[in-house]
């Protein structure tokens, strides 16, 4: 049985606060001999010290000595010697006082342990041993500073956790009946059922199976013709063939790619204030879809995303894959000037990488050793060092020669523009001076005085006042922006690259309100025209992708139009090479100091330099060697990310294969074998079928990390093909949440998939695949709530009826239809999607223009394809939407509904009939059966 706190993973409608029953322990300890600390200490060590001991003193409580217990923590003294019932320690471990200790997932005390503790306290809490010294600074400070930090030794016992052991391939157990003994998955599942005396459901009928398989594998409805063919197909291989067809469909990647995008927290805008568009992120989305369609080996898929630029040689796909690093939330202030953001971005990368690929919450160890898993703070910084070389880099997806030519041509034009801009600045200079003088006249007198006062006579306050107005007076940032040709090279590496257009001088002058004399205006205009002409000759930027490569973030050049301001944490590092190291240059990944967080550079360098490395709990003292730096001739790289990627994607890694097969299982059944697909540590759920998980993991590797091969096994299993309608009162009592899969678990589709099947039903789906995203229609009243919510297209029309996976994903403003249906927040890797059920979802599907219009289109389709006979039309509607025939009662109900709706309206035109039929279609789209995989 799953622990209590995990139950809510299945029952989605309720989230009860943890209610902890007060349990009174029964004393079973033999009433002999006095109990001393020698009896109690082992219990405390095992169950309490992790949080109230050497490394941590949560709640300011230290349980390592009698004195410290008497002193207690934030909640008061833990111990009242002689009176267990009044001692907080006793109350907490028994649940009489909450929260009950130890907290999940640590096991609570056994009855006998409670009894020992009670007797010890009641007998006066004798403590004979010398107390360990209690640190003078208890609480969260422990281990916070590098000086006090001593890395925890990872013991064999810690490595004993099931997920840190390599998966073992056990022979599938023999089971009966024969139907269940053909596919190893079934053998493991049936064995678990047998062990729990559960009876499996019979196989679902073919109509159910085809709808299930379509929705599951490609996220679309089967056409009525496909349903008919399949249902009447006499071939024993009909179902297997169906699975093969669907796995081979190009729509497969569109459905399964969406799941992967959840894992890598993919969105197409940066989030935060600017929420800028990542112009090429769609290439990464297409890469994911293509990789899945191609059944790219998963280990290769992992390596490309983490180190596609470090492959030897990289491919276009592997360069696109490095957008993995860029599609997360980013404030987008320069990292060299705001290094704390860099550390936050690295944290995002560590969270996504270890959570996504390995199911570990390494990010928890950023500030302290992990509280539950054997992951140390040093491990965290080792991982930071693994990633520390990367800098944002826009890979051009053309041969180097073409890229060089483009850069040279661009430079040349900018070189010609620069002097023209300078001339304009010179023309404007006297006007700007005059404008300044006018401005000064309107300022408060003290400011005027400050400006009039000669510089050397100004007070400190006057200097500040004057500087605010005088700064920038004789400098034209726009004119200076492109002076330095080196900055143009930067264009190829800067965020603004793809949509960078030089600021218009005319606009600049207007912005400043400069009124020039006619003659000067004429001159300025001529110059401006020449600039405009030159700009027209600017060559079109070659296709590229916002990815990464190795470099030194501290040396990033400023961007175009960039003026450093006072107060920025710009620092001198005394390094010369290289923002982007060239062949022949000596490149070192910048040092990572233990404990650094970018907030205070002086503090940051006090910690020792950390060497890159792997998690100690997994390498067991013998880390794999770092990968060789790639041998490419065009640039230099450290190879660290590739080493990490190869380690993660190695068959020796106990987690990677398990985590992925578990995700596949979760996406197929709605719950993973491990119910927490991103958490395989102690805070995660234990596997419901551990042997099956291991078998699948080893099979995954054995099959060359083929995702489709695992899915083929799952799809063809009896487990998958079971009916969902089976009900056995006994079994419901024994396993109400269907953990052991005695029937097929129905589940609601995600918002994106609901939208897709609505379009699939109406037949209006636009199958334009790949390329830049489309903007679904969003009502103005929603867009007005978010001024950064620029949205290109806002009406319902075929251009917006593409599959949801191609919908633009803006971090700051989600599409309402997806939002209310629990689309995950894309700021963190989503280990699973919530499934909540609320009235706003119903309102959306009932009243939104999208569903209403599609209902009408579905009605039109039915009327066109079924001829004029109403019952035939209703039957076709069922076939389209639910892949089945209506029952007699359903048919009767629906005919009655349509007739009444038609009669209720004035007139008897075709339009009236269409309205009535549209309403029936609308009801259908809203029905549970339609939005569920049954």
């Amino acid at each position, binding site marked *: 049985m799953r622990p209590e706190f995990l139950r809510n993973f299945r029952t989605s409608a309720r989230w009860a606060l943890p209610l902890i029953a007060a349990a009174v322990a029964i004393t079973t300890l033999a009433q002999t001999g006095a109990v001393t600390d020698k009896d109690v200490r082992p219990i405390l060590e095992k169950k309490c010290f992790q949080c109230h001991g050497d490394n941590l003193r949560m709640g300011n409580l230290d349980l390592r000595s009698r004195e410290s217990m008497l002193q207690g923590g934030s909640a008061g003294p833990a111990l009242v010697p002689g009176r267990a019932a009044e001692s907080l320690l006793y109350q907490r471990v028994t649940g009489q006082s909450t929260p009950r200790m130890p907290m999940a997932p640590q096991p609570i005390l056994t009855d006998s342990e409670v009894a020992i503790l009670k007797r010890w306290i009641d007998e006066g809490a004798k403590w004979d041993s010398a107390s360990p010294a209690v640190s003078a600074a208890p609480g969260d400070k422990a281990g916070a500073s590098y000086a006090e930090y001593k890395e925890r030794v990872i013991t064999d016992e810690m490595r004993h956790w099931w997920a840190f052991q390599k998966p073992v391939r056990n022979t599938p157990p023999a089971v009966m009946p024969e139907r269940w003994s053909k596919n190893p998955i079934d053998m493991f599942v049936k064995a678990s059922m047998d062990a729990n005396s559960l009876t499996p459901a019979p196989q679902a009928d073919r109509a159910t199976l085809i709808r299930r398989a379509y929705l599951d594998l490609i996220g679309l409805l089967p056409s009525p013709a496909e349903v008919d063919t399949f249902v009447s197909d006499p071939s024993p291989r009909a179902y297997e063939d169906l699975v093969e067809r669907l796995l081979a469909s190009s729509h497969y990647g569109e459905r399964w790619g969406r799941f992967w995008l959840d894992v890598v927290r993919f969105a197409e805008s940066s989030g935060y204030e600017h929420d800028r568009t990542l112009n090429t992120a769609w290439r990464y989305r297409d890469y994911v879809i293509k990789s899945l369609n191609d059944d790219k080996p998963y280990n290769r898929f992992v390596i490309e995303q983490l180190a596609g630029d470090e492959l030897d040689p990289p491919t276009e796909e592997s360069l696109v894959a490095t957008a993995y690093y860029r599609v997360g939330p980013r404030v987008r202030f320069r990292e060299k000037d705001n290094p704390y953001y860099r550390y936050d971005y690295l944290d995002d990368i560590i969270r996504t990488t270890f959570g996504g690929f390995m199911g570990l919450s390494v990010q928890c160890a950023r500030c302290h050793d992990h509280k539950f898993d054997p992951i140390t703070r040093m491990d965290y910084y080792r991982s930071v060092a693994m990633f520390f070389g990367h800098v944002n880099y826009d890979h051009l997806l053309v041969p180097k020669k073409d890229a060089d030519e483009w850069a040279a041509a661009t430079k040349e034009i900018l070189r010609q523009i620069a002097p023209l801009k300078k001339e304009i600045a010179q023309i404007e200079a006297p006007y700007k001076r005059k404008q300044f003088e006018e401005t000064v006249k309107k300022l408060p007198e003290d400011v005027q005085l400050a400006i009039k006062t000669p510089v050397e006579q100004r007070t400190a306050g006057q200097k500040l006042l004057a500087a605010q107005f005088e700064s920038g007076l004789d400098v034209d940032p726009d004119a200076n922006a492109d002076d330095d040709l080196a900055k143009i090279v930067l264009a190829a590496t800067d965020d603004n690259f793809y949509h960078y257009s030089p600021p218009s001088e005319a606009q600049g002058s207007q912005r400043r309100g400069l009124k020039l004399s006619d003659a000067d205006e004429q001159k300025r205009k001529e110059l401006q025209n020449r600039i405009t002409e030159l700009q027209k000759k600017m060559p079109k930027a070659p296709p590229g992708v916002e990815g990464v490569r190795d470099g030194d973030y501290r040396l990033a050049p400023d961007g175009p139009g960039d003026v450093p301001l006072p107060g920025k944490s710009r620092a001198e590092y005394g390094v010369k090479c290289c923002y982007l190291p060239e062949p022949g240059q000596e490149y070192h990944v910048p040092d990572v100091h233990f404990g650094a967080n970018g907030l205070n550079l002086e503090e940051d360098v006090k910690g020792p330099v950390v060497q890159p490395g792997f998690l100690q709990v997994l390498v067991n003292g013998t880390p794999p060697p770092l990968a060789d730096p790639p041998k490419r001739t065009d640039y230099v790289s450290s190879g660290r990310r590739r080493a990490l990627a190869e380690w993660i994607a190695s068959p020796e890694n106990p987690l990677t294969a398990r985590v992925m097969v578990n995700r596949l299982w979760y996406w197929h059944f709605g719950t993973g074998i491990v119910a927490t697909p991103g958490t395989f540590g102690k805070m995660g759920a234990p596997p419901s079928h551990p042997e099956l998980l291991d078998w699948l993991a080893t099979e995954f590797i054995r099959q060359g990390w083929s995702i489709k091969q695992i899915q083929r096994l799952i799809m063809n299993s009896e487990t998958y093909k079971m009916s969902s309608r089976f009900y056995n009162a006994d079994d419901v009592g024994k396993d109400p949440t269907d953990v052991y899969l005695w029937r097929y678990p129905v589940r609601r589709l995600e918002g994106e998939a609901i939208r897709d099947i609505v379009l699939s039903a109406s037949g209006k789906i636009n199958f334009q695949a790949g390329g830049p995203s489309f903007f679904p229609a969003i009502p103005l009243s929603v867009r007005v709530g978010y001024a950064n919510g620029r949205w290109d297209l806002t009406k319902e029309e075929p251009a917006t009826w593409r599959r949801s996976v191609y919908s633009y994903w803006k971090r700051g403003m989600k599409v309402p239809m997806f939002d209310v249906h629990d689309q995950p927040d894309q700021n*963190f890797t989503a280990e699973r999607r919530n499934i909540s059920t609320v009235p706003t979802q119903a309102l959306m599907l009932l009243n939104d223009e999208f569903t209403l219009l599609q209902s009408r289109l579905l009605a039109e389709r039915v009327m066109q394809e079924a001829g004029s006979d109403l019952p035939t039309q209703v039957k076709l509607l069922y076939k389209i939407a639910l892949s089945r025939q209506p029952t007699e009662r359903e048919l009767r109900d629906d005919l009655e509904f349509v007739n009444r709706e038609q009669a209720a309206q004035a007139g008897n035109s075709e339009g009236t009939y269409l309205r009535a039929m549209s309403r029936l279609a609308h009801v259908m789209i809203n029905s549970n059966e339609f939005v569920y995989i049954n």
Partner: protein
Amino acid sequence: MMTPLCDDSMAKKQRYISRRDFWFKAGMGIGGLALIDLLNRDGLLAAEAPQACVASDSVKDSPYLPKPTNFKPRAKSVIHLFMSGGVSQVDTFDYKPDLLKYHGVALGSGIAGVQGDGKVIVRQGYPGPLMRSPFQFKQYGQSGTWISEIFPHMSTIVDDLAFIHSATGKSNDHVLSHYEWNTGMILMGFPSVGAWVTYGLGTENQNLPAYVVLYDHRGGPFSGPTNWGSGFLPAAYQGTVFRSVGDPILDLKPPSDYMSVEQERRELDLLARKNANHAEMHPGVSDLSARISSYELAYRMQGCAPEAVDLDQESEETKKLYGLDDKITAPFGRQCLLARRLIERGVRFVQLYNGAIVNQNVDTWDAHSSISENHRMHAAEVDKPITGLITDLKRRGLFDETALLWQSEFGRMPISQRALGRDHNPGCQTMWMAGAGIKGGQHIGSSDEVGYKAADQVIWNHDVHASLLYLLGMDHKRLTFYFNGRNMRLTDVAGELIPQIVGHGKVAA
């Protein structure tokens, strides 16, 4: 004057075909122009009396069902008044006579008590010298609280407000600071306070959303919907925006030219039969019954949400109290009056914004160019409505069971920016809390002599959030949600109750 962005007619103009043709004429050429039954549309729901909208006993399956508290709550609901853009403490509620003395002096150049080292980090451009407030201050109430002249109405209720002068933030960025105060973290993507509260407590009225957001009539605040998002909590707990024009909730009703609510009722009856059939075939799947009841709730919401926002039910006197008779105060007055009506109907958390980033330096409190102009305007917009709200809550007996929190994302600098404005300052802001039995007229914590940084009793967002949860009967350390391997909290790993707010405990030295 409504901004064109909010004008519904503009949305209509943008359509590519007329509404009438939209549904049943365009497309495949089937059907003629149908008569539109506009007349039927609003008939049905007149039957739904306001009483029916408050009762929700029959609801059995909803994530919003009321949940037990950890201990006896002081307040049932929250009204969160968020002044977006950065309110200057030294020009409103944190009187600094020393600024008169030091006007024109560089900050940190030997002024007693100022902790600054002379290096002032400003958000924009170059730092100026210290600047006095352009406003006059006077003392008001039994508490003798100093209030700036721009709050003539609020000065009459100072003895109801508990001021916190030492609220401190971590960022001088609008958006990060909005996240910080609205979600507990400066990073994007964490659940909002209102989401946590509704997750923890549910709501008392299933016929209305549990958490309602009413933003400025000009548009949304900095960073928009992220402020009321549910982060990793289920989407059920996100704030629902009540729109200022038309139906309050997005997609509340079908477009009137498509079908009437009455016709939709008949659809819902058929839908219920279909869903019952389906559920019968899948016994023991609770999600299915939850989805069935969500449709009934949605139907009730169609009647109850418009009732809740129907200000015609209010007396002229009440409308005046909130300033609805004046075009300056009417928009925020409407937000405040709606807030009262919503909490009266059992809505758990109502968040109001003043300030929209349509034209940032004008439409929000972001007074970079002129404190005088900007703060005069925004204070005038909110002063009377907020005073009216508190007066109204008191006379209706709702004040003590409602927790009010008034704040901004950060304070502003005591130094000038280009002579007349002030830049962002996360070092301290003055916020106030009221209602929920909080002792009024208090001054909690303090800033330094010039209002640059918090001096005594530094208070962080986690402390305010912990205290707010406490007032609602929740222990902030026990309100947790499992996410990615951790039991997450609104207050992360911090948060101390503010003794003066919760009424017990000692102020840490």
